[in-house]
């Protein structure tokens, strides 16, 4: 392993290639937007796509990696969105803050959104993941609906009228930054002993226990991390839209995330990203079909499940989503 020579230099650059790619992507998109080539609307769709990717990656950790079945991911997005919006809008009067203080306040609101979603994740995950069976699905479905009902009852956040006047502070840079962080953290988690424990829960619960793995603890931990991811994505969503309504977070929205995940390929982050991105953009590009749009969208899903049941990514992971030091095959192991 030559770390000093030119190949070592290339290897060093290679490690940061995904990050460089992301920066180039940002500059490219911003430039295209500047010269008016990219319509504001498409930029908006792109940003929604990235946020959906984050939520789906969190869901992938729960459903794909750990093998549990959560169907209330939108509930955690709602918790995060309303928490952060309440902090920036109600607690701090964001627009009255000096521009220098804004990023800090926003950052705090994002962290709080993640934390609160995580606490909800614990409250829900702890009792329902201890027992085997479909309890988690039922409980998470109920949770999503309860959250929506409770939000309607809180007049401070607009109740059933919706929460308006949220500063539209989020731009592509914020979203890309958190998108990259999400990928990085989740990748590190999945390829650690924690992630392996999650996979063992998916593969064979009992065998995992006899390997000395406390499966309940690891399932709950993965569930919390998935919830935190959704909460953070919710914070970004709130400050991208500037307006929240409880009905945005219904079980139908939760189903969307499930569809993104399984269409992309559950179990891999590549699948989560590809599924969320493609299925966010596809319905928008089909708008010219007017009423036929959703028919074609549905048909595309059916065909994909028929001909590519393992999802768009076919269960494969992009190599940059696998951290180094874990050689996948003997050839790599040799150097």
């Amino acid at each position: 392993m030559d770390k000093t020579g030119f190949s070592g230099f290339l290897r060093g650059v290679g490690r940061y290639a995904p990050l460089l790619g992301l920066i180039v992507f940002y500059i490219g998109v911003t430039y295209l937007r500047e010269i008016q080539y990219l319509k504001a609307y498409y930029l908006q769709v792109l940003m929604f796509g990235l946020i959906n990717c984050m939520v789906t990656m969190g869901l992938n950790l729960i459903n794909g990696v750990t093998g549990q079945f959560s169907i209330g991911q939108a509930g955690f997005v709602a918790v995060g969105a309303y928490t952060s919006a309440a902090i920036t809008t109600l607690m701090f009067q964001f627009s009255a803050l000096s521009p220098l203080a804004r990023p800090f306040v926003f950052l705090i609101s994002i962290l709080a959104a993640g934390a609160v979603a995580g606490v909800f994740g614990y409250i829900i995950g702890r009792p329902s993941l201890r027992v085997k069976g479909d309890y988690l699905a039922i409980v998470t479905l109920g949770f999503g609906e309860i959250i929506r009902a409770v939000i309607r009852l809180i007049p401070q956040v607009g109740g059933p009228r919706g929460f308006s006047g949220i500063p539209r502070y989020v731009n592509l840079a914020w979203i890309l930054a958190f998108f990259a962080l999400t990928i990085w953290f989740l990748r590190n988690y999945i390829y650690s002993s924690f992630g392996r424990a999650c996979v063992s829960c998916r593969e064979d619960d009992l065998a995992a226990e006899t390997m000395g793995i406390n499966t309940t603890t690891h399932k709950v931990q993965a569930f919390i991390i998935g919830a935190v991811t959704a909460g953070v994505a919710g914070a970004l969503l709130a400050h991208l839209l500037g307006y929240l309504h409880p009905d945005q977070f219904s079980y139908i929205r939760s189903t969307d995330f499930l569809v993104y995940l399984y269409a992309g390929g559950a179990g891999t982050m590549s699948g989560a990203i590809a599924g969320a991105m493609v299925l966010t953009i596809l319905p928008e590009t089909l708008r010219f079909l007017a009423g036929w749009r959703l028919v074609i969208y549905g048909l595309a899903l059916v065909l994909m499940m028929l001909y590519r049941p393992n999802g768009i990514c076919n269960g494969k992971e992009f190599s940059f989503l696998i951290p180094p030091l874990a050689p996948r095959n003997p050839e790599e192991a040799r150097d």
Partner: protein
Amino acid sequence: MPITPENPSVLEVRDLGIRFGGLQAVDSFHYRLKEGDLGGIIGPNGAGKTTIFNMLTGIYPPTSGEIFFRGENIVGKSIHDFTACGIARTFQNIRLFRELSALENIKIASHMRVRYGLFPALFRAPSVRRREDELEYECMALLDRLSLTQYAHSRASSLPYGIQRRLEIARALATSPRLLLLDEPAAGMNPQEVDRLAKTILWIRDEFKVTILLIEHHMQLVMNVCDHISVVNFGKLIAEGTPGEIRTNPAVIEAYLGKGGKF
């Protein structure tokens, strides 16, 4: 019972029993295993052997009795705590993580020895990278000791049957056990494979310094490798002794072959 030089029991089972509804599957089972011993439990189908194993690994909580492991009563602990105490097992119907590679199976079993925190893992701190590197090395070394190196990167479900059995033993050893429970390790093997297995079991006992308890149907294997044998039938212990004693024990012959039978 505490461990003393006079009483170096690794495992001591007293009056163990379990009832499923109206069925008393195991009744007042007594058992003792000394450090470094190779014990065997035999018995006809449905005699309650696997049920005993499931109680010894925490999978079934017994309805009566005590299990002392190295002097500590471990009844009531959860499955992973049994493993943490130092009891590892294989399964009658192999339960590898089928979709994962042999190496990944071993890595998962090494979980208890990988001690880094959640936050270092999330940030993939240098200490985590180092530990993962070492782990890779340790696991490959273990595979190598069991002559499984060539299968390291193959998916477990794609391996030949005998290799899967061997991998499952390797996986159990990766938890650094003091006591290794083998549930019908020879099931589905041909005579040559059984011969090799017998050698492997003896070798593992010496190489890994583990006490081994096995359940088996295969008489030849049990007679060849075990220091002493316990025979169960209808959930009860009916005989105990060295292979020679068991071979001639009338109660055993009756259980296996009916009255007037002969081995």
